[in-house]
């Protein structure tokens, strides 16, 4: 990255009218192709004042006279710092900025691992990021379809697994935390994730913290964190239309055909963004409909999402984010039979579920003297759902969250972050009963840097009250190191504690799944963990025409759990959530991305090996943990040719070795499990404001189950069109 500062002296060419505020206009382009860049962040250094480029790469920023430094950043490009001096009077200023594409040497700034902005190469924890372009390149309507391209991240029947922490828990309890702009968006009762409430098309970036531990984000983060950073409004009004239409293939075997026509799916959305003086907002309406690839896979959803960003001078800003989702769909429990795996059992053919979800997040940021930052967050997450058919259960859950955080820089290299969180959940559900859960937490982290060596020390105290009575309290530490012997190489090691208090669903569920019963276990204890890892990140970019860049990351990790909570059928076939005495998930992961021939060809490979075992107090292995892949491999190959991008990606998971509900029958091979081999391909075309993509998923119609008696996704083809105006 060029270190030569660009100093712009802006001379007076016009009238001598004194100004209180300058309006700076400009555009940001790709230095190589000259294409305008959308969503580039232009921020006044040391303040919250900033903006982002619109669909034409244009931006507008209002500043007061004087000396300033603008920071221009975008994932995939070298960031720039541009010093400017604005005299007391002068003309309207225009800046034309060209960013060099270089995703490797760029210091990507991430905010999740230490709850404050930090260069990704200085991080002592394993963190990977996803850009909006990567999300768009999968034609994904929901984010869960994209996360699995990252090393160490997998899904079991839509349950997020980072390094195999969660397995599958019948939707009750997740050991990986999902945040939206730093605020948890997990269900109050079950601690589950509803992927439909994540606005996949309005994301600035996704940060995935793969190192386990609860020191920063508490219960539920013991197996990692996914933080979705939503975008802010660009400086000019912008309207965007996006549609995805597609169809599922008919089953590859005549015996499995169950409907006369192909199942269709579609998504239409319109987003409008607009600045309002120093402020800005975007709103989005989205309608998605799918017939599903199975009989009860149908779904209809309507959502409205919006975010308003308010800038109060250079030192304070606030944002309000809201999402309202109304959806209904078939309630899938299991297939009719292995002979008719796409159909639902006769008795539950008309089972469905409907509900509404409301998410409201507010954040207030203020910079005090000496760059001390105060952040105050408030959130409401309300979920209501109702089943119809053989199961008529319903639920109403509300969660309120308040948080205060302060960030204090100590000189140039050291940093302290501390905060207090209060969370209150109210749950009234047919299968859980009426309960309240309160969580209080105090956390702190100090980051020290000396030369190429940096350290972070942190901890968290968290207490839980269930129905007003103390349930548990936990204190966990975190210590982590980073050493950068070269600018392109970073070595890291970390050790930390984690914990998760049982959810209301795990404590109090009482329901029936076919002939299986789930019964409550109010005697559950919190699960705890000790996580350690060592890892490296290598990021190198060259001028060679053969190898343009290489990014190689790897980690060796071990998570040791005590009192891990797992669903277990007893000898009467009754499922309770139980504390498994001890469990150990160790393994390694590696991910490599390379660009060749001046990025004509890029290749991304990611592999994760897991050894998930249940052990006794003496350390003897008792069994394999259920619903975990031992080997997990993904690859993506992209070929860029002018306005076209051709892509081929795949996912391989080894056969799940152990399940809980149905075992493979030794004679008839009923409930057979197979490894997963899924191949996808796409062709994308981009010209000006128009993006078109044709994508095929599960091209070879490979059939598998992730969860017993639930078939994996059928082959499907989709066409997406996005137009910015």
């Amino acid at each position, binding site marked *: 990255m060029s270190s030569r500062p660009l100093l712009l002296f802006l001379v007076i060419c016009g009238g001598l009218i004194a100004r209180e505020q300058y309006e700076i206009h400009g555009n940001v382009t790709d230095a190589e192709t000259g294409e305008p860049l959308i969503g580039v962040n232009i921020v006044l250094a040391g303040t919250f004042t900033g903006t982002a480029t619109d669909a034409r790469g244009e931006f507008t920023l209002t500043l007061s006279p004087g000396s300033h430094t603008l920071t221009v950043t975008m994932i995939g490009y070298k960031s720039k710092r541009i010093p400017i001096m604005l005299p007391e009077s002068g003309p309207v200023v225009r800046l034309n900025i060209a960013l060099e594409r270089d995703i490797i040497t760029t210091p990507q700034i991430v905010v999740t691992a230490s709850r404050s902005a930090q260069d990704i190469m200085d991080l002592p924890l394993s963190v990977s990021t996803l850009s909006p372009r990567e999300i768009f390149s999968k034609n994904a309507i929901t984010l869960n379809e994209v996360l699995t391209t990252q090393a160490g991240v997998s899904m079991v029947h839509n349950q997020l697994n980072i390094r195999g922490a969660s397995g599958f828990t019948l939707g009750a309890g997740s050991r990986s935390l999902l945040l939206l702009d730093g605020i948890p968006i997990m269900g109050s009762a079950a601690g589950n994730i509803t992927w439909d409430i994540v606005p996949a098309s309005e994301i600035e970036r996704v940060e995935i913290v793969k190192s386990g531990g609860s020191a920063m984000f508490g219960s539920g983060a013991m197996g990692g964190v996914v933080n979705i950073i939503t975008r802010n409004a660009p400086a000019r009004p912008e309207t965007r239309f996006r549609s995805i239409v597609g169809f599922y293939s008919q089953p590859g*075997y005549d*015996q*499995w055909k169950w409907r006369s026509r192909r199942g269709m799916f579609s998504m239409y959305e319109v987003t409008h963004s607009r600045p309002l003086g120093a402020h800005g907002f975007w709103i989005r309406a989205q309608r998605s409909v799918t017939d599903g690839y199975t009989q009860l896979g149908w779904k209809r959803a309507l959502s409205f999402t919006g975010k308003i960003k308010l800038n109060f001078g250079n030192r304070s800003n606030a944002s309000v984010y809201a999402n309202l989702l109304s959806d209904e769909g078939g309630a899938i429990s299991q297939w*009719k*039979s*292995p*002979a*008719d*795996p796409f159909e639902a*059992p*006769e008795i539950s053919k008309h089972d469905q579920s409907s509900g509404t979800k409301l998410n409201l997040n507010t954040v207030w940021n203020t910079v005090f003297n000496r760059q001390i930052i105060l952040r105050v967050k408030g959130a409401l997450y309300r979920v209501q759902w109702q089943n119809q058919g053989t199961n008529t259960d319903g639920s109403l859950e509300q969660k309120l969250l308040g948080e205060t955080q302060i960030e204090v820089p100590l000189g140039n290299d050291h940093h302290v972050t501390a905060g207090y969180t209060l969370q209150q959940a109210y749950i009234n559900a047919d299968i859980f009963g009426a309960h309240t859960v309160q969580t209080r937490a105090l956390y702190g982290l100090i980051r020290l840097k000396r030369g190429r060596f940096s350290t972070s020390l942190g901890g968290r105290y968290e207490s839980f009250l269930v129905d007003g009575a103390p349930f548990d309290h936990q204190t966990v530490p975190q210590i982590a190191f980073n050493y950068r012997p070269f600018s392109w190489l970073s070595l890291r090691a970390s050790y930390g504690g984690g914990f998760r208090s049982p959810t209301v669903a795990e404590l109090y569920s009482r329901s029936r799944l*076919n*002939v*299986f*019963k789930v019964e409550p276990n109010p005697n559950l204890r919190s699960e705890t963990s000790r996580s350690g890892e060592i890892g490296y990140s290598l990021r190198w970019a060259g001028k060679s*025409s053969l190898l343009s860049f290489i990014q190689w990351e790897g980690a060796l990790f071990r998570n040791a759990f005590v009192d891990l909570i797992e669903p277990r*059928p*007893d*000898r*009467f*076939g*009754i499922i309770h959530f139980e504390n498994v005495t001890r469990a150990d998930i160790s393994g390694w992961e590696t991910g490599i991305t390379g660009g*060749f*021939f*001046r990025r*004509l*060809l890029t290749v991304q490979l990611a592999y994760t090996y897991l050894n998930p075992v249940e052990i006794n107090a003496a350390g003897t292995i008792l069994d394999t943990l259920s619903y975990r892949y031992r080997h997990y491999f993904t690859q993506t*190959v992209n*070929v860029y*040719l002018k306005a076209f991008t*051709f892509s*081929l990606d*795949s996912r391989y998971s080894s056969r799940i070795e152990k399940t809980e509900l149905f075992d493979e*029958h030794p*004679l*008839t*091979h*009923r409930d*057979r499990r*197979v*490894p*997963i*081999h899924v*191949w996808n*391909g796409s062709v994308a075309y981009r010209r000006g404001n128009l993006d078109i993509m044709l994508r095929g998923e599960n091209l*070879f119609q*490979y*059939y*598998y*189950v992730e969860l017993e008696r639930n*078939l994996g996704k059928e082959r499907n083809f989709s066409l997406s069109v996005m137009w910015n105006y």
Partner: protein
Amino acid sequence: MRRNFTRKAPHLISWLSLIVTCAGLACNTPVGLEPVAGVEGTLITIGAWPDSYRGIVVAALDSLDLETPARHFIDYSEVMTPTQDTLNFFIQLYHGAFVLVPVGITIDPAFFIANLDSILQAPSLPLVPLVDPDNPLLTIRSVGIGEQSVTTLDQPIILDFTQ
């Protein structure tokens, strides 16, 4: 000509890598789940069940031996519970000949499913073949199963508890 080749080589290599990957995969992608063989049919009960039965399944035996059915037990259908009077069932089997017999379960069906292996080893089984001794063919069915094919019973199995 050499310059032309040098300029085009990256394109050729990129395309070649994509095409070779595709072709390799098309040839080597393993086969996942495939259609299974088995038998499907309907079980109908008439009248109130005897109190001792907690559930009824249709069992597939590899030969008709009602004295020691556990020795010949291959697989069984979904469980019909006392609140049901009709069960559309499917039993996954393999190529061969089998006998279908409705069986009353005298213990909790969930316990039966969870502990089938040990139950079948026990000297006294919580299973009662529901066969009319006077007219056994009313409830017993013999079926032949082919490869990856499902045999459908043309008549339902009827258990009449009113008689």
